[in-house]
């Protein structure tokens, strides 16, 4: 179709052509076209088929309020053709179409069957007889859903995120929003202005109506936009949809990138001192039979098609409207060459008589008190039936376009989400904010204003209020501005009519869910008498349009029919995101914030198989042998090195430090001797093991302690929580990242250490459980003799910056003694041979230290310490019916190792295998299990039920632990 001659409001550029592929059809467009405008220019009228009934759907709002124009673009489903720029070479497909083009859909017969599918159809049918339901599911699934996503789809593009702090955030770049931004900026504040469209100007931007003498509204919009652009302290985000608003003025939004942007889309989080909501209004759909037939569109859609994109919506149009914007559009479109069949207006009076006179001047029939009741035409509109509102008279007119709109609906989402409340306002017919969250203000058309000066002034006023929130002395300006506002026209009276005299069978209140007025009535007759329940029962308003189409009409209609117990219209809930957002955009750059030990790179280089353990990356093994046999045997026979830097490490000091330790550790911490390490455990109030570790006394009132890897983050919080009422004088420092840890273990460990330090590390000078500080080539080391893996071992705590040097030195020095790295898997088996537990592996949430055989750690004679868990430890000390930790071996030699996690059974489940491995030291399988206490006697048979064993059990017997070196000679030597 031919475009209009150049207009000052155009967003397209003549001469810059592009083309897109719509199915088989090549469509020519211009730079500046959206997908929707490019297709429309090529006479595409049917953009897709509806969800349930496969009805043809086309342009309606041009702002993405419904799924009508959701299309598949380059493999991405549900792209909104109305606000996606056309790009040369794009491949576009219509959705929910069974057939080659949306003009011919093999499923269109569904529309004829709609009578058979009342509201709640699925709930009341398809379950009798029960065998049809599984078959029905298959068909329901196939029929449901819009858009196809391939399982191997790969989203291209760069998705960025940005976190902005500002004084004032203005939502909406129409005249009110721009004025608010300017007036706040004028006070020297930083302002962020968000606008969903690619340009500023809102309802002013495309209208030629006079703003003041010689200045049309569109020119005024451009002037304001220019001022905004020239104000350095206003940061404008166009193409940016506001999606969420939360307490304390946290606003989320996302921006679609332009060609010149480095991002495809960008997620924004804005924290503002004050927020101005100037989101304006969308149009409230007029409901009549076939009110969503392609050719039926809202005022803004028809008007902007012509004014922004040079496309007349059709050849001959009938208008059925309820707002002066409709009359204005009819006049302008007539002047641009559209044949206007008539303008019906819901209002009997209260329209702008000047506009009516202008219509008359152009010989356009004006019908106040009339309304469209049916659109005709099977694919697109070819006629419309109008009726007087009292249903006494009717008239059918041929036309290819019906411009229909019942009135306006304010966009109040940003106010409601953080807790604002709406009430129904009888004058405007709007749900208006009755309570607004603190530091938030509203302005512009959403208040029901229509007069351009009133809209701008309300913006200026809101900007000043925001400035006041930010501490600016603007009392006088505020007073003056409020006075100004009072002289200007207030909110205009709004229409309340939802629908003319129609049957409602093909009158669609929600396009996305194919929900008709008849369906709403059916729901009400079934007892769903409040909008929120009707919404759930009929799905109306739960589609991709985020309730943009039925949001206002549904509560008004329900109140009007009188079925509802409450005659006052009640708005339905609005939820974020207010505009649908790609998961790619929300995910943004998706940074991985894992932690690496100081040894990370060299471990990777050495062939370490790294794994994420909580926040850490750790080496599980150093070969592809999953049993880690070589690493294990080397620790038992020579000496091994383990990177234990992930251990939690803390300093706790101050005059009351000991009291804090006594509170959280179950042992008597006053017995921590100088030069010795003390191993102990922390329990929760139920006596269950929370953590274990060692404590060293560094100095008077100064301790160094370790926590297990998983608890490093929580330990300080834990101690602080349990001492919060005591007012004790102590301090804690988390040294986890400041120190690295090397565990050098094996019979040759001392030989290696002797070679690198001058300190006396003989068994006499530095015995088992000892603590020493010395230098390794001038690098200070905190060394402990511990026995987690059961061999002579030194745990060396060294400053992170020295880690690599000391590690390398040990490796080079230890070469002659057979030193090798070992990883977590080897450690797991080595410690198991010693019967040492790993929290979470051999303990559950409900496992006490008694259950684990660690009850000896508990010192019961310190009641004054109020040790966490002490009462429970006393209660559970001899409690029957608990799961206890035992060691086991297989009953018959040659039996394979049972799988971890397998339950132990007799007539019921009696426990389970925690860890079981083949012990290279013992040359047989060993394991640890949590079992009912009556089964923990040595020699008791345990029957192991593995998954998929079909009743073929493995037999094991309880044995004493440790399995390896029960006397501990190896670690003490």
């Amino acid at each position, binding site marked *: 179709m031919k475009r209009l001659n150049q207009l000052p409001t155009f967003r397209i550029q003549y001469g810059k052509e592009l083309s897109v592929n719509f199915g088989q059809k090549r469509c020519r467009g211009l730079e500046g076209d959206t997908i929707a405008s490019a297709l429309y220019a090529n006479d595409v009228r049917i953009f897709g088929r509806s969800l349930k009934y496969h009805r043809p759907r086309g342009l309606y709002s041009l702002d993405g309020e419904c799924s009508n124009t959701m299309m598949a673009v380059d*493999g991405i*489903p549900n792209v909104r053709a109305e606000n996606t720029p056309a790009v040369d070479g794009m491949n576009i497909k219509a959705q929910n179409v069974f057939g080659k083009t949306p003009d011919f859909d093999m499923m269109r017969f569904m529309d004829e069957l709609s009578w058979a599918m*009342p509201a709640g159809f*699925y709930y009341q049918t*398809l*379950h*009798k007889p*029960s065998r049809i*339901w599984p078959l029905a*599911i298959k068909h*329901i*699934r*196939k029929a*449901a859903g*819009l858009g196809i*996503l391939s*399982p*191997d789809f790969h989203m291209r593009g760069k998705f960025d995120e940005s976190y902005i702090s500002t004084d004032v955030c203005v939502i909406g770049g129409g005249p009110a929003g721009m004025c608010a931004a300017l007036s706040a900026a004028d006070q020297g504040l930083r302002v962020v202005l968000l606008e969903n469209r690619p340009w500023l100007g809102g309802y002013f931007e495309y209208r030629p109506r006079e703003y003041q003498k010689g200045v049309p509204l569109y020119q005024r919009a451009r002037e304001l936009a220019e001022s905004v652009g020239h104000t350095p302290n206003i940061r404008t985000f166009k193409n940016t949809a506001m999606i969420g608003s*939360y307490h304390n003025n946290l606003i989320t939004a996302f921006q679609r990138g332009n060609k010149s942007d480095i991002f495809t889309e960008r*997620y924004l*989080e804005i924290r503002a001192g004050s927020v101005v909501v100037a989101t304006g209004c969308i149009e409230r759909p007029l409901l009549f039979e076939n009110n969503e037939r392609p050719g039926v569109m809202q005022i803004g859609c028809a008007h902007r098609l012509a004014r922004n994109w040079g496309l007349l919506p059709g050849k001959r149009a009938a208008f059925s409207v309820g707002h002066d914007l409709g009359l204005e559009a009819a006049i302008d479109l007539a002047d641009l060459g559209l044949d206007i069949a008539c303008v019906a207006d819901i209002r009997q009076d209260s329209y702008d008589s000047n506009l009516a006179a202008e219509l008359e001047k152009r010989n356009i029939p004006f019908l106040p008190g009339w309304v469209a009741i049916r659109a005709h035409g099977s694919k697109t509109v070819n006629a419309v039936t109008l009726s007087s509102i009292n249903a006494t008279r009717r008239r059918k007119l041929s036309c290819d376009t019906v411009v229909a709109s019942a009135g306006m609906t304010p966009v109040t989402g940003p106010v409601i989400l953080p*807790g604002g409340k709406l009430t129904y306002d009888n004058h405007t017919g709007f749900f208006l904010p009755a309570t607004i969250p603190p530091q938030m203000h509203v302005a512009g058309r959403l208040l029901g204003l229509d007069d351009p000066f009133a809209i701008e002034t309300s913006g200026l006023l809101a900007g000043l209020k925001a400035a006041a929130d930010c501490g600016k002395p603007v009392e006088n300006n505020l007073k003056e501005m409020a006075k100004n506002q009072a002289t200007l026209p207030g909110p205009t009276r709004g229409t309340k009519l939802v629908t003319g005299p129609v*049957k*409602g069978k093909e009158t669609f209140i929600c396009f996305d869910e194919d929900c008709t*007025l008849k369906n709403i*009535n*059916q729901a009400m*007759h079934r*007892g769903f008498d409040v909008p929120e329940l009707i919404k759930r*029962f009929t799905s109306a308003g739960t589609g991709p349009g985020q309730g943009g189409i039925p949001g206002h009409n549904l509560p008004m209609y329900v109140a*009007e*029919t009188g079925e509802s117990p409450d005659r006052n219209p009640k708005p339905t809930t609005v*939820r*974020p*995101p207010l505009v649908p*957002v*790609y*998961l*790619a*955009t*929300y*995910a943004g750059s*998706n940074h*991985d914030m894992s932690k690496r030990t100081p040894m990370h790179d060299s471990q990777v280089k050495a062939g370490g198989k790294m794994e*994420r353990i909580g926040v850490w990356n750790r080496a599980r093994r150093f070969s592809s042998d999953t049993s880690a046999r070589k690493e294990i045997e080397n620790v038992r026979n020579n000496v091994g090195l383990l990177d234990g830097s992930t251990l939690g490490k803390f300093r706790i000091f101050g005059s009351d430090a000991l009291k804090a330790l006594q509170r959280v550790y179950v042992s008597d911490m006053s017995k921590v001797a100088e030069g010795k390490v003390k191993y102990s455990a922390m329990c929760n109030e*139920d006596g*269950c093991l929370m953590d274990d570790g060692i404590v060293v006394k560094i100095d008077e009132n100064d301790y160094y302690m370790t926590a297990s890897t998983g608890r490093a983050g*929580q330990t300080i919080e834990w101690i602080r929580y349990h001492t919060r009422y005591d007012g004790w004088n102590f301090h804690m420092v988390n040294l986890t990242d400041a120190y690295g840890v090397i565990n050098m273990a094996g019979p040759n460990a001392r030989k290696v250490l002797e070679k690198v330090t001058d300190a006396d590390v003989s068994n006499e000078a530095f015995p088992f459980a000892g603590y020493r500080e010395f230098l390794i080539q001038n690098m200070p080391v905190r060394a402990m003799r511990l026995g987690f893996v059961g061999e002579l071992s030194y745990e060396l705590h060294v400053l992170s910056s020295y880690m690599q040097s000391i590690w390398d030195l040990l490796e080079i020095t230890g070469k002659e003694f057979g030193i090798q790295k070992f990883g977590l898997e080897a450690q797991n088996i080595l410690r198991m041979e010693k019967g040492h537990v790993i929290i*979470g592996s051999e303990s*559950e949430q409900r496992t*006490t230290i008694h259950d684990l055989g660690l009850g000896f750690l508990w010192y019961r004679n310190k009641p004054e310490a109020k040790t966490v868990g002490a009462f*429970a430890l006393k*209660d559970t000390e001899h*409690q029957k019916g608990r799961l206890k930790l035992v060691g086991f071996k297989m009953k018959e030699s040659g039996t394979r190792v049972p799988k*971890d996690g397998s339950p132990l059974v007799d007539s*019921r*489940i009696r426990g389970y295998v925690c860890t079981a491995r083949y012990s290279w030291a013992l040359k047989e399988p060993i394991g640890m299990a949590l079992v009912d206490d009556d089964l923990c006697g040595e020699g008791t048979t345990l029957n192991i039920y*593995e*998954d*998929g064993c079909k009743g073929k059990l493995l037999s094991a017997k309880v044995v004493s632990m440790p399995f390896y070196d029960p006397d501990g000679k190896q670690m003490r030597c």
Partner: protein
Amino acid sequence: MRLKSNSNINGRLWGWDPPLKSSYDAVIIGGGLHGLATAYFLARHHGMSRVAVIEKRYIGFGGSGRNTAIVRANQRTQENLPLYKEALEMWPVLTRELDFNLMFYNCGNLNLAHSEAALKAMRLQVASAQIYGIQSQLVDPEQCKTLIPALDISDRPRYPIYGGMYHPPGGIVRHDAVVWGLAKGAARKGIHIHQGTEVTGIGVKNQKIVSVETDKGKINTSRVLNAAGGYSAALSYQMLGIRLPISVLTIQAMVTQPLKPLLNHVVSSGAYHCYANQTLKGEIATGAHMDPWPNYTNQSTARYIKHQAEAVTEFLPCLKGVKFMRIWGGLADMTPDMAPIIYGNDPIKGYYIDCGWGYFGFKSCLVTGKYMAKFMADGTCPNILKPFTLRRFEQHRLMGETAAVVNYSPDN
């Protein structure tokens, strides 16, 4: 204007609002799934139809209408397994009984393991389920991919997939349908459902329940069930001084725009704190972890929806091309061991508790309603419910439904 109703639509599902009588044989506080199910079974199995369900908002307003409707029976402990097994078997039965399609979509559940430790935990769950005759099996990454072709089983993700636990009898149910179906069934049997009615007090005399006060009037009764979900602990303490070890936290869930079939099973991942399933409408529903602070609002947060997008696109990368459409929040009443509190007649005779369900309230509603009704009718606790006693907490006998320490409450 009023339109004529269609002929095949006959009457209100749960009748016209009944008058509030001055006395009932039992009063159930909370018109959610547990309350409605108990009411239904009181009438159906025990002939007690002089029962009132008191709901402050509308039925299904709370967790009943906010959960993501996943059902399964592969629990961890033997106390839970038989209960959830029976629960799962009840969906088709109740669909028939209520003559209301609950839309049980038996698609099966796949839980992903991202570590050896997770595989071990799953092995315990799988074997335990098998012992109880519940279908459940471990699968390797390739089998996971066959079940859900959209999964990324490569080494690329932060937590690569090590395998999974596949539980074919599970699936999803339309939660609203269960609310309405039970309300329909209960109302047809004479139960009174009072919506928009708030309980303001509970009368006790000689350690026995005697009445329930509401904003619409006083009701004499000797039995009260506290099935108030997120509000149950507050109600118990404020009206009877009985403290329950419950923390209330917001849990959020969200859906994408509807798509043609993409996920044929429920898929979830503990490491990513995330599950995803495709509803019969085609929306992908996802959610999982709780907000880390207690609160009584249903408000969603900016952090949560972003985290969910980050998580789910790690193991289902194709979902980057779909849009989130809606997020909502609901209250989860969490106990220290993530198992419910089902208790009664102690210390007040006639006072029954069914709460603390946290994550699990939806899948368990029918079976709990059945046995709770028996409990209230007989006055003695059925064996299957005994493990869920309130007394377990003072005896430090937590249930083992979760292996790891629960770390959500401020007491931790």
